[in-house]
């Protein structure tokens, strides 16, 4: 994928004007992670209501791909059923970003937000819902992300 295809207007716009940027006080789900290779950081806060994502916010620093990806992911899951978010795949995220065939180094930037989201859901499902079977499956998915 050429950089002219990666750094399209929409990616730059989400990088410079991230939607849903910020924090939620006492969120139901809170997760933070970083990519030790490049230092990108991401924290995601989520509130749930009636089994739906009622609010989601993120903070972080990093490259255009990682930050735009996080912002677009928050828009993708806002108001969605918890089940939908649990089932979200990396293909869904890349499709939503319009990024295909990213190299092995840069795909980590694009998927950091999904990794944070999945680990956040994992903690929620295992600690608050005590649903071990479901939690194990999500953890396996999350650890396979990069």
């Amino acid at each position, binding site marked *: 994928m*050429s*950089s*002219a295809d*990666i*750094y399209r207007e929409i990616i*730059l716009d989400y990088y*410079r004007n991230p939607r849903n940027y910020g924090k939620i006080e006492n969120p139901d789900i809170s997760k933070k992670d970083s990519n030790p*290779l*490049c*230092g*990108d*950081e991401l924290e995601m806060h989520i509130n749930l209501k009636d089994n739906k994502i009622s609010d989601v916010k993120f903070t972080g*620093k*990093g*490259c*255009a*791909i990682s930050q735009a990806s996080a912002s677009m992911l928050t828009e993708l899951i806002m108001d969605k059923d918890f089940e939908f978010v649990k089932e979200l795949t990396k293909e869904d995220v890349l499709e939503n970003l319009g990024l295909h065939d990213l190299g092995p180094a*840069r795909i980590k*930037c694009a998927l950091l937000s999904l990794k944070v989201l999945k680990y956040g859901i994992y903690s929620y499902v295992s600690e608050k819902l005590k649903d071990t079977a479901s939690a194990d499956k999500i953890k396996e998915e999350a650890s396979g992300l990069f």
Partner: protein
Amino acid sequence: MQASVINIKSIRNDFPILKRKVHKDKPLIYFDNAATTQKPIQVIDAISNYYLNYNSNIHRAVHQLAEEATAAYELTRDKVAKFINIKNREEIIFVRGTTEAINLVAYSWGRQNVQKDDIVVTTEYEHHSNIVPWQLLTKEKGAKLEYIGVDDNGELILDQLDAYLDTGRVKLVTFSQMSNVLGTISKSEEIIKKCHQKGVRVLVDAAQSVPHIKVDLQKLDCDFFAFSAHKMLGPTGVGVLWARKDLLESMVPFNGGGDMIREVHKYETTWNDLPFKFEAGTPNIADVIGFSAALDYLDKIGMDKVREHEVELTKYALEQISAVKGIKLYGTPDITKRGGVISFNLGDIHPHDLATIIDEDGVAIRSGHHCAQVLMERLDVSATSRASFYIYNTKEEIDVFIRSLNRARELFRI
């Protein structure tokens, strides 16, 4: 090709990798030399010649192959001694790299000499390899780790060193002779003199300096000195720790095993002589022999010429890059105080995005925190881009690099 202090055309011919193309048809422009340099054919041939013709283990066997291999391995030690100008060849310890050399000192000398409430002083522009071993040591001992700060020109604030030394509790001062991010050349002799006046030991991390400037250890007069072969045309997996003989003799071994022993009994062992006391196990024979060819190569050009070439390139690059709209440069503008390393940011383009874009034009630079997160914090950035030069780089390559930066700027509409 521009007129140069060195014969750039013939040098480039010695590096097979420089003939390859990247991203289909772009000539490789390799500006990531502070991370590792490319290898000339002479080094590659020396390694393959060892494996093809006299591969064997060293020091013990008496057959001809072992004698040839031992001689080639030990000859490298002599060449290193000459290269850094020291008298005693047995003070040269071969290790895996600078990181291992520093860890060896921290684990062996550090554990014997640093006690509770003592102070180890490092600097804000160190690589993680000259911070983390000291964090481990000082935490274990209940000692303190202190930092010499970096000023806005990217130079060490030496008044802070004086204040630490005045406490009378400093056991070791450890600093890099050249910063891997800013390129700043430390005032090494001044630092060492101050420390020795107070009886404090000094370790010099020379990973970035030995490949680029002439060093003379008799003049420098430090206590420990560490560098890596792979940043100076040699193979990966070889590094050097030099330390004064009396210190090495007082230190306990870092690794126990074969080659480092004199006699082993069931419950006690006596140590072999230097340097073997610190070279347990079969060493990296092939790559030490490859390193020998790298030292020959640099010797033939002459380290003064290497430095002169890099000064010329860096001066040109700084002039050109300063004119790029939105550029922010880190480090001193004074070329006499810096090596061939340029750290920068361009507008709000994250270094990883920038490196991705210019890589498409064949330009390989490093982006990120450069294993120097303490310095990134000091500069108040999460990352920088870094271009670093070596003997085979040219002004024409810098022109391509600058055009590529401008393309990135346009892509990001800066």
